[in-house]
């Protein structure tokens, strides 16, 4: 694989984990517009621990996940006091605070950033991305997944049905924090350098777009969204600086054509092998006539 391709695959893996972090909260109806803040906490935790002599890269990663999960848990309480768009703005403000603190803290390198001694190669990133994806797919098939999807549709009724709405929302912020921390730690160890400017509001917006354009109804959505957002800008490189215009237009078109996201529940069902196995004969007949 060329260095260029390897770079794209690495960013894809990191973005995919990041997208699943945001997806978990989005699946329960909470939009997190502060993803970069969580990823930054994971990346800087890994960088600090690596510099402090936790030499094996694999030890800093779970530690960074734990720190970010704790941040997600703690921030969930004030953030969830706000509703709707105000909750979204609260997550956005949180990421800005994280970024500001990182820029102003001399021991973390300030605006210069930090070198991360330990290197994690591409296979570790790919393995982590696959594991994160499988984890979220599994999570969505459990009672836990059913409960968060119910909260997405109707909080009041979910509560009446016995779902602890608040504790589930805190749980998804915590899990989302852990996954964002994982993506940040892998970023730090793979690119061997962290700087606060990378974890900016544009990153928060983009990762939320991965999820919303991909679709929040099934765990396939973040995969589709991340593929689209990581690969399309690269494919459009031939167009020079016009590629951002084309890319922006493509996003608008996607939102018009598939407002519920690229992968919806109905589409996933239609493509699943289970559907074909029990497909009523009427569909086959219609297929014959309709061509």
């Amino acid at each position, binding site marked *: 694989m060329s260095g260029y391709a390897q770079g794209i695959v690495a960013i894809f893996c990191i973005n995919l984990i990041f997208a699943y972090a945001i997806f978990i909260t989005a699946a329960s109806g909470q939009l997190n517009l502060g993803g970069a803040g969580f990823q930054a906490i994971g990346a800087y935790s890994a960088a600090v621990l690596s510099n402090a002599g936790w030499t094996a890269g694999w030890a800093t990663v779970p530690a960074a996940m734990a720190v970010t999960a704790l941040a997600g848990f703690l921030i969930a309480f004030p953030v969830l006091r706000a509703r709707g768009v105000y909750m979204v703005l609260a997550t956005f403000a949180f990421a800005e605070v994280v970024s500001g603190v990182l820029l102003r803290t001399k021991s973390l390198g300030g605006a210069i950033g930090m070198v991360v001694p330990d290197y994690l190669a591409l296979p570790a990133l790919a393995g982590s991305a696959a594991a994160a994806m499988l984890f979220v797919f599994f999570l969505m098939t459990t009672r836990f997944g*059913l409960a968060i*999807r119910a909260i997405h549709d109707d909080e009041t009724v979910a509560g009446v049905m016995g779902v602890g709405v608040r504790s589930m929302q805190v749980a998804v912020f915590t899990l989302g924090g852990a996954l964002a921390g994982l993506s940040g730690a892998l970023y730090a160890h793979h690119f061997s350098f962290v700087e606060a400017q990378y974890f900016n509001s544009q990153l928060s917006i983009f990762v939320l777009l991965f999820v919303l354009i991909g679709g929040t109804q099934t765990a396939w959505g973040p995969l589709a969204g991340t593929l689209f957002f990581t690969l399309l800008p690269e494919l459009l490189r031939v167009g020079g600086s016009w590629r951002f215009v084309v890319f922006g237009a493509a996003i608008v078109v996607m939102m018009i054509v598939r407002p519920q996201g690229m992968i919806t529940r109905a589409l996933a069902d239609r493509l699943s092998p289970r559907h074909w196995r029990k497909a009523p004969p009427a569909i086959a007949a219609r297929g014959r006539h309709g061509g």
Partner: protein
Amino acid sequence: MADDIMLSLEGLAKNFGGLAVIDGVSFRVPRGGRTALIGPNGAGKTTLFNLMSGVYPLDRGSITLDGARIDGLPVRRRIACGLSRSFQNIRLMAHLSVIENVMLGQHSQIAGLRQMFAPAQGRRGAPARVMAEERLRAAGVDCDPDAPVSGLPYGTRKRIEVVRALMSKPKLLMLDEPAAGLNPRETAELSAFLKGAAAEGLTLLVVEHDMAFVRGLCEHTIVLNFGRGIYDGPTAGVQDDAAVREAYLGTRGPPAREAGHAA
């Protein structure tokens, strides 16, 4: 003492702003009984359901279910105490399939984190899913359990909501206009189904405008008007009660008063 009482409301009150929507309502629902709660629009029937299920906090009064006070409990705990309900406007989860909606009704039965993170709805043959499918069939819901609920006919969705409410194995089932929008055949089927459930020990409290349905199902009726109870007795006596007739039809007041209104 109250072995024959399933639900007891004492002096319930709820204000929205300065408006007393529920103003000192007290009544009892006998164990295993089929009780109707009726009243003109705006009488406070749905608000009363919301107070009982904990969607709104109570201003005053007490709610006792099967001998235990439940008015201090958060919403999610009340279903585990045996109180389950349906909603006036169908409130199924639009993005969930039929079987997932019904299995959500089992949520209060989950014990511990292990069951919370055990694979659930997708797997065919899983005991919880089999049970949900059986309940759907028993209620006469004949549709693909994996179909999304949003595309189903109104009457089917209405019945799915009743099945969902039954999945928590409630002691008291509160139904908010279960027959609204159903055709006569569906209404008769629902009535027979609910009678069967009551025969197995379920206590029913039903808000309904369809008086034929109420007369066929409920032996006992409570009438509410402007947030107060105005009748509490056998269903057969409702239409002869002066206060109830006044609430629904208005008073035959003296001409002077009508002239006063017109002015």
